[in-house]
């Protein structure tokens, strides 16, 4: 296992974290991890390894039972329920199933999310085209989700995750439903966003794409981190 040490204050810190679901089902066991601002990290592992739990811990869909989870120096364990929406506005979340509204057009899907977080109609009109263009889906703005390919639907989900201009983007199996070509397109898009300074965390089991990306890989098994390989390590392995 390769251990990373960051020079600056870590953006995300997990220290001896344990997550236990009701019925004594273990989600994570003694997980310690540091992620720097601007990192691109893959969480890999088999189904049930704890990838999604790790991601849900950061989005506060799940609370840890032991240890410390902090984001930008803020202890997420002490966060009150009413503070969770504000936390989520500081990150973009891309769910595995895209979670698009089937009766709304592409632009309406993004607009709906913007309206839900308090953007005015005029802000929505101004910003939606730019957001769609930033993920190369602007030309399909008037299409309905069922008229889009899987890759295009994923782009819409990414566009929606960008509405708050977040410094952190979290994606759960973003290529899980895509063919290799589309998967690579999505990864390229995430890479572009990362180059602009966005911290990207991706849970995936698409090892081919992950190795091709040559970024840091954190491997989980039965709720524990079994390896943490830096991008340099991945490149040298390749």
């Amino acid at each position: 296992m390769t251990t990373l040490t960051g020079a600056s204050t870590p953006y995300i810190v997990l220290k001896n974290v344990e997550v236990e679901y009701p019925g004594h089902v273990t989600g994570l066991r003694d997980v310690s991890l540091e992620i720097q601002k601007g990192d691109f990290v893959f969480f890999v592992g088999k189904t049930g390894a704890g990838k999604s739990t790790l991601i849900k811990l950061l989005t506060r869909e799940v609370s840890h039972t032991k240890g410390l989870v902090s984001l930008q120096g803020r202890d997420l364990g002490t966060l009150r329920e009413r503070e969770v929406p504000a936390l989520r506005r500081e990150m973009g979340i891309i769910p595995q199933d895209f979670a698009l509204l089937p009766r709304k057009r592409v632009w309406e899907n993004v607009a709906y999310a913007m309206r839900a977080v308090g953007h005015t109609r005029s802000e929505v009109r101004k910003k939606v085209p730019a957001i769609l263009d930033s993920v190369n889906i602007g030309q399909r703005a008037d299409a309905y989700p069922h008229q889009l390919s899987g890759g295009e639907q994923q782009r819409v989900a990414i566009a929606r995750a960008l509405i708050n201009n977040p410094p952190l983007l979290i994606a759960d199996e973003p290529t899980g439903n895509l063919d290799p070509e589309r998967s690579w397109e999505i990864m390229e898009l995430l890479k572009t966003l990362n180059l602009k300074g966005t911290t990207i965390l991706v849970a995936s089991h698409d090892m081919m794409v992950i190795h091709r990306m040559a970024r840091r890989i954190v491997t989980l098994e039965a709720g524990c981190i079994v390896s943490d390989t830096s991008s340099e390590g991945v490149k040298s392995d390749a």
Partner: protein
Amino acid sequence: MLDRLSFVFGEAIIALRRNGFMTFAAISTVAVSLFLLGGLGYSYMRAVDYARSIPGKFDMRVYLKPGIDAATISKTAAQIRTFPGVAAVFWIPKEKAWAKEVKDDPANTAGIENPYPDAFKVTIKRLKDGDPVADMLRSVPTIDPDPGVVYLKDEQHLIDEGLQVMRWLGLFIAGLLFVTAGILIFNAIKLTITHRQREIRIMQLVGATTFTIRFPFLIEGTIQGIIGGWISAFMLYGGQHVFQKFLLDLDSHAQLVAFPTFEALLVLGGAGGLYGLLCSWLAITSPNRSK
């Protein structure tokens, strides 16, 4: 702020449209239950007022046979006072009755000989004492069989029975329907939450506040309650018209009261709205709520 409100109200309207049947069921049940509960309460008060307003509703006029002497009249009065349910007995001499009639209607009484017999005004204790007292009076030999005993028999029956029915059956049925309406509103909101799981999830993912997520459901329940309350007010308005027409048919001198439309809309709409708000709040905070 207006933009924000337009979004949450828009969400509520979408939910109301999408759950057409449940919305209809909830609104109509609220309307019927409030109509029965509030409406019967109002009708009960009006009926009580009406009962109080009927002149001499507790009085019976008892006519004696012609030619009865004063001693027999006095004896008969004493006998009537012993009847159960009788509160008081007053002798109305025929001269006195005729003098009043002449005074009230001089044009039609001029030159006519006094046709009145001596009579009693018998006051009963309760409305339901009317029939048994009348039966006992008819059995007294000195009382003229025709016209004999005159009293507001139909009105007494109607008012007494009507009040009782309103009080018990109305309360029971309206209470039952009110609970049913609450369950329907609760279920309608639950259904909305289920239908809108995807929207709720998206709102949660992008960091929408609890207010933004929950408020549309509260609006939805409140709107259902208010509309139900308003419909019940209109039902009541119609009901009062029918009831007053019925009273007029019975008694052309019945005092009619104008329907307080604004107050009914305010009170019943407010009650429905509060109830809808309460039921929708229970729905969104019950265990399988969206987090």
